[in-house]
């Protein structure tokens, strides 16, 4: 039977008359209690269309029902700041960066779709986060990607990785957004559960800020962009159900991964920005997960108003779709705008200029109800906030897993260490050619970093740096970091270390860290051990943000990254945004000039828990991650920012995975100059801990010749310990007395790994 056959639609009237009709709430992912709660809210059973709305809006993905109670800490512990123009709860946080500019940024996951269909899964992940940024009123100006896969040599990684990278490349490049960096990591725990986290940055003037609110009864609801099709029904939210709605069994076979059209998205971006600039938009919301259901409920709830929507007005790609499917469809490249009737003609004129389909599908009302009709029959009549904001909240049981103490007790001190110059030499070569530390050029060369002409730093640097104003050289730096091994050993410290690394990376460009976004990737929240990891990570991140004075502006939670009983490592991925007063003074990682003093900043301990060395050389994961010292992180960041402002440094690079040795190798390869370093008091062959330890709060810098005294004084004033290591120059990286590696050999080791694996 056809869904257009209105005689068979489940209307509000029919729902009231048939209270006992069974409904497939369980197949749609709703528990019995949740279904009962809907009945209480409505005072009757929901219609099929209403059930569709609640099932997607109350899904974990949309409602954050397992995480919401914990995420409150980000607001409760937020450091005092005047920089935040919009915070958690909006599509993305908005930060004042001065000179009348504001930036908005957010990271989101597209993990599950990227495993099912790597190319489209990753591509539509880019599309979704870009629309979030556009919905705030900003022009999207850059993206970053944080990627994690199973073992680099696993057959399935050969399927997933090229597809994911190809999808990000395809969508981001076609959209004209420079990719300014990110992360690439491999671990067996991500086999079957790759992590694809994409960050987008947008720029606007303060007055351009838009909110997702349907205000002004009588204003029109306009759907913009692609036609609605059957793709991705329940894709991001719940599994599609064969028995659902009126469309029959055929619907179940349709793909649950959406298909992206970056060309349409580019038109939406340009059209949307022109509509904003012309003052024709009262409120706006992107259509992502849960599509029309999400946009209508959130806009109406955000405006505190009601809304009447004619679902049969939604332009379709497949005429057989019924109301429930239209509500749940996750067809890409769509937005919803609220427009004053008097301005509709101009609004539609701009849409026509950009060949963007725009359709009035309803209007804002003052009733406080979200009403939807299907060929005149009322099929939805709900309080919008009940779906958008008042979903269930669960405090799920959390318990430290029994193996955790044993894991932490399994110290890496028992592992055999290199003890001679030649052994240290080969250890460095092994580490910089390991997939986790090798040159990611195979990936990043597939991304356009140049488009828009404002990219100052991109992949291969500590952070991406984008110029915001060509006249004043104001810019924004962004880094995105995570470390699943640290998270596994201690989720509280692991989250803090991820934040600390991104914060340090932003400062290493000379920028001042200002705000935080995050993507919390975890296993199933129904597993108390995972829930414990999650609560620890959130608490750690919130505490550290408070200490460092950088507020969380928004983010994303991705649960259920697990196959059977095996969850991924707890992997909070943290993005830090900083403001750069003058991008012409940016610091980069490369040693480009000979004769500079090479100085290590920060205190070093022999810390190897969760280290790259333990993982690569021994396949070991145990002990405790490096100690967190947020005061030291703050001092280091202040020093790097001030030294950049005074022009004292030629290069700066944070020390993290693989320790100082890997950092030095990267500095040499990035700039083409070698270095000769030594460690006072060590006999040759004894430098293992100096070279490969992973103490946090450290960076290596090359000091501009002539600025040594001023930099030393500044370091002392700032309370940052300094160790003079040696000098830049020559064609090798040399540790005096122990070993030397010609840059050509370093480069071959560093750059050969991914091409050998992926072609």
């Amino acid at each position, binding site marked *: 039977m056809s869904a257009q056959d209105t005689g068979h639609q489940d209307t509000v009237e029919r729902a009231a008359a048939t209270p006992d009709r069974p409904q497939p709430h369980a197949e749609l992912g709703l528990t019995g209690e949740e279904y009962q709660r809907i009945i209480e809210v409505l005072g009757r059973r929901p219609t099929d269309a209403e059930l569709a709305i609640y099932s997607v809006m109350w899904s974990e993905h949309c409602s954050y029902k397992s995480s919401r109670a914990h995420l409150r800490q980000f607001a409760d512990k937020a450091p005092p700041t005047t920089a935040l123009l919009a915070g958690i709860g909006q599509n993305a946080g908005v930060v004042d960066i001065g000179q009348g500019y504001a930036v908005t940024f957010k990271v989101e996951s597209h993990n599950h779709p990227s495993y099912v269909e790597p190319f489209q899964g990753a591509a539509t992940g880019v599309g979704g986060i870009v629309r979030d940024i556009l919905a705030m009123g900003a022009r999207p100006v850059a993206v970053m990607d944080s990627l994690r896969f199973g073992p680099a040599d696993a057959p399935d990684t050969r399927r997933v990785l090229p597809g994911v990278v190809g999808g990000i490349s395809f969508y981001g*490049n076609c959209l004209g957004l420079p990719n300014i960096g990110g992360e690439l990591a491999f671990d067996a725990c991500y086999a079957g559960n790759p992590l694809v986290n994409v960050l987008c940055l947008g720029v606007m003037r303060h007055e351009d800020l838009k909110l997702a609110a349907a205000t002004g009864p009588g204003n029109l609801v306009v759907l913009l962009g692609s036609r609605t099709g059957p793709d991705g029904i329940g894709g991001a939210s719940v599994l599609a159900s064969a028995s659902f709605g009126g469309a029959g069994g055929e619907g179940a076979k349709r793909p649950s991964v959406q298909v992206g059209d970056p060309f349409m998205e580019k038109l939406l971006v340009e059209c949307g920005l022109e509509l904003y600039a012309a003052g024709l938009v009262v409120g706006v919301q992107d259509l992502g997960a849960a599509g029309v259901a999400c946009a209508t409920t959130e806009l109406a709830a955000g405006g505190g108003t009601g809304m009447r929507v004619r679902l049969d007005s939604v332009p379709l790609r497949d005429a057989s779709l019924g109301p429930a499917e239209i509500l749940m469809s996750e067809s890409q490249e769509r937005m919803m705008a609220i427009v004053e009737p008097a301005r509709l003609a101009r609004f539609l004129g701009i849409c026509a200029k950009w060949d963007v389909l725009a359709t009035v599908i309803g209007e804002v009302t003052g009733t406080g109800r979200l009403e939807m009709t299907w060929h005149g029959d009322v099929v939805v009549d709900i309080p919008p906030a009940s779906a958008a904001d008042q979903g269930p909240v669960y405090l799920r049981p959390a318990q430290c897993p029994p193996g955790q103490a044993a894991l932490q007790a399994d110290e890496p001190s028992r592992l055999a260490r290199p003890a001679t110059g030649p052994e240290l030499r080969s250890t460095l070569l092994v580490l910089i050619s390991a997939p986790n530390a090798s040159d990611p050029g195979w990936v990043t060369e597939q991304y356009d970093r140049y488009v828009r002409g404002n990219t100052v730093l991109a992949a291969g640097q500590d952070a991406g740096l984008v110029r915001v104003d060509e006249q004043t050289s104001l810019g924004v730096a962004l880094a995105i970091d995570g470390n699943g091994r640290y998270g596994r050993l201690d989720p509280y410290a692991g989250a803090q270390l991820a934040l600390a690394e991104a914060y340090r990376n932003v400062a290493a460009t000379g920028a001042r860290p200002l705000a935080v976004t995050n993507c919390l990737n975890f296993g199933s929240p129904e597993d108390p051990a995972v829930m414990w990891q999650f609560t620890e990570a959130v608490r750690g991140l919130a505490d550290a943000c408070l200490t460092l004075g950088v507020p969380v502006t928004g983010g994303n939670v991705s649960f259920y990254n697990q196959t059977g009983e095996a969850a991924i490592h707890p992997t909070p991925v943290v993005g830090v945004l900083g403001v750069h007063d003058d991008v012409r003074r940016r610091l980069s990682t490369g040693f480009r000039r000979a004769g500079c003093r090479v100085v290590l900043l920060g205190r070093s301990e022999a810390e190897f828990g969760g280290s790259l060395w333990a993982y690569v050389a021994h396949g070991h994961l145990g002990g405790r991650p490096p100690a967190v010292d947020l005061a030291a992180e703050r001092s280091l960041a202040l020093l790097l920012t001030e030294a950049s402002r005074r022009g004292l440094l030629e290069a700066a690079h944070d020390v993290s995975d693989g320790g100082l040795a890997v950092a030095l190798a990267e500095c040499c390869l990035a700039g083409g100059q070698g270095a000769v370093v030594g460690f006072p008091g060590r006999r040759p062959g004894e430098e293992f801990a100096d070279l490969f330890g992973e103490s946090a709060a450290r960076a290596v810098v090359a000091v501009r010749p002539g600025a040594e005294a001023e930099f030393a004084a500044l370091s002392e004033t700032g309370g940052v310990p300094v160790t003079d290591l040696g000098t830049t120059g020559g064609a090798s990286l040399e540790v005096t007395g122990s070993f030397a590696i010609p840059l050509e050999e370093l480069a071959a080791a560093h750059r050969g790994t991914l091409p050998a694996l992926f072609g």
Partner: protein
Amino acid sequence: MTARVGVITFPGSLDDQDAVRAVRRAGATAVPLWHGDRDLRGVDAVVLPGGFSYGDYLRCGAIARFAPVMAELVPAARVGLPVLGICNGFQILCEARLLPGALTRNRGLRFISRAVKTRIQNASTPWTSDYAPGQELTLVIKNIDGAYVADPATLAGLEARGQVLATYAGANPNGSADDIAGVCSESGTVAGLMPHPEHAIDPLTGPGDDGLGFFTSAVRALVSA
């Protein structure tokens, strides 16, 4: 009098603002042109920027060649209006038969974004007169369909008539025939380039400023014309 250089925006053009910036930095006035207008607004030269016009659906540049603005551009180019097509713009010029040959999928089948060495082969066109013959430039490629192809007779003819504008100086990045990075019309006024000169006008945001010469060449040619 400053030269007026038009930059066409098609739906899906991406590097149009970069082209505008380069035109301005070369001292000319940048005039935005819209794909849907049959109007060149009296410009002295035109740049077709990079991007994915019309999503590159069907074939790169295949739909853009039918845009209303092209109905004005093609005859004007045939009688001497200087036109530079960069990347997608080059693809459009080939589809419009203003330039011979075609751009096909890169060897390796992947998108490639990196700085490349490019050698100027013909320094006597309006777009290259500020360079010396044989001069090596560092420019940027970023495309997935950048491999230049043409039949052997066409390639021989291009060579004989000096229509090879530029070649890749280092390793051929994408399998282009005869290492060709750019070609021009017989008169030299219509030029197509896969590498992006507009992304190499400032060492802050690109690999250097070697690309600015394409735009200053045009400005000089227009002012002295």
